[in-house]
């Protein structure tokens, strides 16, 4: 990044993970702008004294040193380096005079005494500014101890400064379950666990990792997070919320991850695959990324209004996913905290504004073809069928006989019918050049100045050799001189494995985002990611083979008191699985999981009546569950209707998929408990798991219990646990023997069949036990 541009880039912040640092600092501690000062100034001051010229008060901006240090209109100097007593900023934050005090009361921002001291001390120490860390070029810091895995070297260095010690390695069983759930989103089988436990040769763990990275389920697991980022869904989202066809794009994502496509190429194909020279069908399918936004088909809407929505959504999504910058702010005005302008927003929009789309879907057409552009993607069988009909049509046309005319009309009709069954995938094109204007206050019909396709002014410029279209934009994004995409992406990998990113605010690397907990590490990882050839699997391998990742996740009082959120990683990660994997794990453990990859979305069990209450029109207004194997596909294939998203997934914090989401919350609620206890999905899985225990778990009660426990948690139960499980089974068996009707009812839940020769009360009691296992905290948790 050019130095002249860097001058303009000064900002960031927030939460108080390391607040102790500033509050406990001794008089000699050196204040650092990015760590100590920017968070305060950004949050409390920049709104009126920052980048947005339209809301700037008293012509004063504190985000740039030369501005903050010059004489103001009222003749004072806000900041005089080394001289806090002469700095008006210090006077204004300390004064008791309500009319003078900054920030003013109406801003609802109050500086703490500690923050005031920090600001004063920083000025006293010379008021040195720093460029916002995320905009600096990626450095490749030296590894503190080259004998260690680089991740461990950085993490341990910080632990040492905090007087904390890394935990010991987790036991092998915990470890294989952890890494298997993380990399493929499924539990390890007992056989996989045994193989690993008995593999005493060096590199046993690495062999597991390599096996997982080569698994076709790896792509499915990686796709889940990408679908959140891409706001993927199976319906249009607005009003009647009809179906769309984009699963072909979803399957492309799975294939791309499995093929370990370079992340830069993965980026280019999704943003501009259609513009690549001699682009392939696959590359055009990839551009579905930018058609995942909602599409309105409501009668009476103004097309321009929604065209403005779609293009804005593409800008915001692109800026969030690759840059972690909050461009949505600049849709209506210059950014309040970060150095981006409204012009930047609309200049980016110009890249996405030439698609041959209408702004409004055509409600009179079948929903899969109502919103061009789209690409027909027939299966080979359908292609052959189409070709055959076309040949016949040709022949019929040349046929002078009397019956030919009738045959021709029949053939034409069947051609149309078959064509309607051809899957399509929404794609991008560049077929309708449009002029782009700044929209005043973001309102679609309030046109301001005309703009052309350009990247944000403060970022590294687009090379002269790059075309000013989406392809140029994509290449610019992943140019190694752009410091953001690599940092942002490795941070998301970190978040996926450790629960929280090195930068907690994965979606905001701006001034208001949180600075990284380990600044050198995120840079080293970003540099390594680029130099590895944007190799995703290699990066994940590096992370999961670190000792940091492999630590035991047991809490210790000392570490927990010092670092309650485990940001310093004195222990391994332990947190609840995403909803998809909670369900997938139950299906896998019970043997129900249907491992087919890709294809149209499916409809697993779903409470009756939910759609009928709220739906209307010609969309999917009644939920009809699938039959057979489609009931047991992995959860990422579940039909996602935006207006009524899958309720079980929503209970486990799935986003609506209306906008890009890079970080799901992780709640723990009674409604989740009810779901795991009573949803037919889990009652059926419990029955099938019970059957496995009875048929595959040996002949003793104990061996069956151990087998079931291992299927779910990978480990064998301890004696105290076996005692509870045995008593539980005994009691359930007594009760179901006394009430065979109840047992029979319990076993009727779900479509999957169980062996009719099994005793009803026995199977019911084991089913009850299996349900207990599927409801354990440990089961829903990666630990």
């Amino acid at each position, binding site marked *: 990044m050019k130095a002249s541009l860097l001058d303009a880039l000064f900002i960031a912040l927030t939460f108080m993970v390391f607040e102790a640092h500033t509050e406990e600092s001794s008089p000699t501690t050196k204040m650092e702008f990015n760590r100590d000062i920017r968070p305060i100034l950004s949050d409390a001051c920049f709104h009126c004294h920052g980048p947005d010229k339209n809301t700037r008060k008293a012509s004063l901006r504190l985000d740039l040193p030369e501005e903050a240090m010059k004489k103001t209109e009222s003749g004072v100097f806000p900041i005089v380096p080394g001289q806090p007593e002469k700095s008006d900023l210090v006077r204004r934050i300390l004064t008791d005079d309500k009319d003078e005090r900054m920030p003013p009361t109406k801003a609802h921002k109050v500086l703490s005494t500690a923050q005031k001291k920090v600001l004063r001390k920083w000025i006293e120490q010379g008021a040195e500014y720093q460029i916002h860390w995320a905009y600096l070029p990626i450095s490749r810091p030296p590894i503190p101890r080259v004998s260690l895995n680089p991740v461990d070297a950085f993490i341990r260095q910080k632990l040492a400064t905090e007087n904390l010690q890394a935990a010991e390695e987790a036991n092998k069983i915990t470890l294989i379950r952890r890494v298997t759930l993380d990399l493929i989103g499924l539990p390890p089988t007992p056989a996989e666990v045994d193989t690993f436990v008995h593999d005493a040769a060096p590199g046993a763990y690495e062999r597991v990792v390599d096996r997982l990275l080569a698994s076709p389920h790896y792509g499915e697991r990686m796709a889940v997070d990408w679908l959140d980022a891409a706001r993927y869904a199976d319906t249009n989202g607005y009003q009647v919320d009809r179906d769309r066809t984009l699963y072909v794009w979803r399957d492309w994502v799975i294939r791309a991850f499995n093929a370990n496509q370079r992340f830069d190429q993965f980026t280019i194909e999704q943003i501009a695959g259609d513009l690549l020279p001699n682009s392939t069908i696959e590359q055009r399918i990839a551009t579905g990324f930018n058609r995942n936004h909602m599409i309105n088909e409501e009668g*009476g809407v103004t097309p321009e209004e929604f065209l403005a929505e779609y293009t804005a959504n593409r800008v915001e999504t692109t800026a969030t996913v690759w840059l972690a910058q909050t461009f949505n702010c600049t849709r209506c005005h210059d950014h309040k905290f970060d150095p981006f302008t409204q012009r930047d927003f609309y200049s980016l929009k110009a890249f996405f504004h030439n698609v041959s789309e209408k702004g409004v879907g055509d409600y009179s057409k079948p929903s899969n073809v109502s919103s061009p552009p789209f690409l027909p993607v027939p299966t080979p069988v359908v292609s052959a069928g189409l070709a055959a009909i076309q040949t016949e049509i040709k022949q019929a046309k040349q046929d002078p006989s009397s019956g030919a005319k009738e045959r021709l009309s029949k053939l034409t009709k069947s051609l149309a019918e078959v064509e309607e069954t051809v899957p399509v995938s929404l794609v991008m094109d560049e077929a309708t050049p449009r002029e782009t204007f700044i929209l005043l206050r973001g309102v679609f019909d309030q046109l301001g100045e005309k703009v052309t396709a350009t990247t944000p002014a403060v970022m590294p410029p687009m090379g002269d050799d790059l075309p000013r279209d989406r392809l140029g934009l994509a290449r610019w994004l992943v140019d190694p001189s752009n410091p953001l995409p690599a940092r942002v992406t490795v941070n998301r990998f970190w978040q996926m494995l450790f629960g929280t990113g090195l930068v907690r605010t994965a979606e905001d690397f701006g001034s208001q985002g949180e600075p990284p907990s380990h600044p050198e590490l995120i840079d080293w990882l970003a540099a390594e990611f680029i130099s590895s050839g944007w190799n995703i699997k290699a990066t994940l391998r590096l992370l999961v083979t670190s000792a940091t990742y492999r630590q035991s996740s047991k*809490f210790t009082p000392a570490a927990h008191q010092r670092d309650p959120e485990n940001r310093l990683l004195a222990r391994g990660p332990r947190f609840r699985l995403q909803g998809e994997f909670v369900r997938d794990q139950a299906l896998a453990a019970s043997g129900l999981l249907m491992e087919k990859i890709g294809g149209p979305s499916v409809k697993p069990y779903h409470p009756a009546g939910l759609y009928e209450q*709220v739906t209307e029109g010609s969309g999917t207004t009644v939920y009809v569950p699938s039959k057979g194997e489609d009931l047991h596909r992995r959860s990422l294939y579940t039909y996602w209707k935006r207006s009524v998203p899958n309720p079980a997934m929503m209970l486990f914090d799935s986003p609506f998929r209306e906008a890009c989401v890079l970080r799901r*919350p992780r709640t723990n609620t009674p*409604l989740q408990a009810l779901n795991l206890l009573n949803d037919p999905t889990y009652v059926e899985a419990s029955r099938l798991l019970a059957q496995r225990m009875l048929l595959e778990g040996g002949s003793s009660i104990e061996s069956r219990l151990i087998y079931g426990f291992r299927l779910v948690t990978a480990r064998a139960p301890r004696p105290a646990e076996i005692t509870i499980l045995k008593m539980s089974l005994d009691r359930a068996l007594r009760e179901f023997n006394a009430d065979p009707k109840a047992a029979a009812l319990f076993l009727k839940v779900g479509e999957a069949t169980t062996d009719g020769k099994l005793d009803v009360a026995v199977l019911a009691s084991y089913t009850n036990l299996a349900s207990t296992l599927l409801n354990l905290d440990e089961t829903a948790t990666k*630990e």
Partner: protein
Amino acid sequence: MNPNPFLEMTRRQFLGRTSTGIGAAALASLLNPQISAAQGVAGLPHFAPKAKRVIWLTQAGAPSQLDLFDYKPGLRSQYNKDLPNSVRKGQRVTGMTSNQPRFPIAPSIFTFKQYGKAGHWLSELLPHTAHLADDLCIIRSMHTDAINHDPGMTLLQTGSQVAGRPSFGSWLSYGLGSDNAELPAFVVMVSRPSGSGNAQPLHERMWGSGFLSARYQGVRFSAGKDPVLFLANSPGITPERRRAMLDDIAGLNRIKLDDYQDPEIQARIDQYEMAFRMQSSVPELADLSKEPASVFERYGPESRKPGSYAANCILARRLAERGVRFIQLYHRGWDQHSNLPAHIRSQCYDIDQPGAALVGELKERGLLEDTLVLWGGEFGRSVYSQGQLTETDYGRDHHPRCFSLWLAGGGVKPGAIIGETDDFSYNVIKDPVHIHDLNATALHLMGFDHTRLTVRNQGRDYRLTDVHGEIVQAILA
């Protein structure tokens, strides 16, 4: 409960932290659902509230202000005349009528009378509501930015046309927590028209929690054995069997807790206990069988049909009695682009008597004084007819520039009339009230400064009223 000293320490740590938005609230409640149930976020509400709970009677599809509340006797003489350009001023109309050659004025065919000391003009379609006239504060000068249902309802509920912001109810449950640990703080009930009304679809996002934690999203109550999703035990599982199983789960989880010391495990144990309590408290709440016959008579014939708006009104009262913070009813079917006279009659049959019964009952039981009741839709309807206009029939298109809405209860000035529209019920000419103003005022009644109920998301402090909203003083008692 596990009086584990280590967990106690953890709890103190979490609670002792300064409020950093979602984090602190969520973490505190993770450690003890009772705490969040009682307290919500530390420091909230900002001042003593006038209302402790909200019942939002949302009329989805946009009821016609011209046929219900906004009496325009002068329009009779304008029948079938063109809407003057001086009124429309070239303003945007929807694509459904923008191609009409004319905009013929359609006066309401319904008669209006003045009611109560307040002298509210109300149409003959609302005879029961009319009895309550002196309890109602009617705003005739509501206006909005949206002209289509989906963005309009999203704006009404979340303060933004763009999907993804938290809904009003989730803001309140975030800010206040629940008064009842065994029920969700934010409950939603949806009903369909009993007649053939033109129903618009609704979206879960309208009661979603946006970027707030999912724990604050509205919980949909449905008629039937499972009022809350997955509440009922699986067939064949008795409450005793479930209790036994929960004890086993808790026993196993405690072994894990002793080993790992993760407070999240204690939280899970507590959540399972709360789930069990909900399994008895929710069915008790949803069971209307013990309501006396007089109640059903009061709420009207539809009230005996589970899932009807009328039955939901009875449930709303029961929820209010049990301390639920935000009770939201949606009644669909108001989108009367054609055959308005017939359809609005049937809609009013659905909502008039039950709504009046609800307010009346709240009043008699002493609940109205601290319950804020709102009634209204996402926008208004046009004075000009959509489609064929006859002496007895017309349709009305969407109209964002004015609509009517009423409030009653906690802190609301009874009998007040706010705002005025022009002779065509087209433009607001006095005291305009934007949705943001309404929300600012409602939050004020709930004890919040709407400019300070904020949550940080993507680097910005968001609020229900975005950067807008003025408290409407005339609404306040």
